[in-house]
């Protein structure tokens, strides 16, 4: 069995990129998964229908934190219309690991937050 706790995942989980508040944010969302106690606050700055920057705070397991870190990196410069198409497969590709149905929920929370954040106004 290959561990899902690959170097890349662990690094992003322990030192997540884009962790913190984004004062210039145009879109915000707070999303939680009470069943595992995960919470993510995502702030996104959108300019001309393109994501300029995204940052997050919150708490969660290594998988959800690493996903939020990688996702907030990946969305920079991406058009809203394009970002709407990102799905489960995009996240799995980003993480580079296989996840069972239970842990997949942890990885999909940041994507759900991203989709909800860009829903408003566009």
């Amino acid at each position, binding site marked *: 069995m290959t561990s899902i*706790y690959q170097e890349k995942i*662990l690094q992003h989980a322990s030192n997540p990129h884009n962790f913190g508040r984004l004062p210039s944010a145009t879109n915000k969302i707070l999303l939680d998964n*009470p069943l*595992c*106690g995960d919470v993510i606050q995502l702030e996104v700055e959108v300019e001309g229908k393109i994501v300029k920057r995204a940052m997050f705070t919150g*708490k969660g*397991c*290594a998988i959800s934190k690493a996903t939020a870190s990688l996702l907030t990196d990946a969305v920079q410069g991406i058009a809203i219309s394009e970002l709407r198409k990102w799905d489960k497969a995009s996240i799995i590709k980003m993480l580079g690991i296989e996840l069972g149905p239970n842990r997949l929920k942890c990885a999909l929370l940041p994507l759900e937050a991203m989709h909800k954040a860009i829903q408003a106004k566009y």
Partner: protein
Amino acid sequence: MISVFKVKKDFPIFNDQPGFVYLDSTATALKPQSVIDSLVDYYSHYSANIFRGVYDISEKATAQYEDTRLVVKDFISASSVKEIIFTRNATESINLFVNGIKDTLKTTDEIVITIAEHHSNFVPWQQLAKKKGLKFTVMTNDKLQMTNQFQITNVKKYVTNKTKILAITHVSNVLGTVNPIKDIIQEAKKINPAIIILVDGAQAVPHTKIDVVDLDCDAYVFSSHKMLGPTGVGVLYVKEKLLETLSPYQYGGDMIRNVSIEETLFADLPHRFEAGTPHIAGVIALKHAIRYLEKIGLESIHHHGVELAQLCYDTLKEQFGEKIALIGPEKRESGIVAFTLSGIHAHDIAHLLNEDGIAVRAGHHCAMPLHTKLGIGASVRASFYIYNGKDDVEKLIKSLQKVLRLFSI
């Protein structure tokens, strides 16, 4: 003394996976061969419906099914087989009871439960109170970390002469504490002799000899699958006098005496509360689970679980010091140890332990109000049963050390 080596031979899962460390018996217990054989025996040799078949295999199935009722009655020292109702699980037992009693409650009646209840003994009462506008009180205790969670002093504080229902767990599935149920019941009945007390015994029955008459509870519930039996079978014990006054939970076949266009006469106890074809094979197999537990002896089972949990608790404390937060009092009273490791999410811990062949539970263990009260998110829970040994504790500790190294904490 339990010979874990010998016990393991009775559980076929260990033939499949010899090194498997199963520390989640609080969620569900593994099954011995005799229980599995009993299920196969029913389906292979006498898989008939019960009660009205006048042919041999239906007679046999009926006799076996009803014999289990007798075995369960003796197992918990109930007064009569009429007081034993088979359900799907402890949750359904509680829901059946709540449904049966709801029409007898007045608007001035109060319901008291405890903060440590499993959601199954929390939500049905909360919802009933909401629907009927009854006062709903949750007993808490600021010393959850130090002592038996609920004592007479707590009862005196929360139970009043208007309290009609007290629903309380026997053993907490998170704290691992054993409530002094007999004392609590005595005290509550002193305050209000008309109080009705339901005890959730899901975590107690697999480890403890229960005597419902001695406890003097009005209702007691438990699940077969946590005590080596099959899933899909639960038990509800209710004192006969009280049971006579409850409304049926479901209507249909098997629970009637006579049906006409105008009305229906219900069956006698306990069949009035067992509508439809039950899990016949499962109920019969429960008898074999009880036999297995009795062969080992409940006292030995209890001591074995506590001994391992204590060893686990002490070693975790010694090895991980300030990095670990152990939940519940230092002196272990059951086979349960729950904890959190600073900076590492419970799901990550459980996932990594799984990579070493160790099964633990991570989450809030269906006790969200308790986790909120303790101020923690998800916790990791290791629980020990008859097929666990000291080597399992060692493997758990070793694997946890690996987890800490991986997260460099």
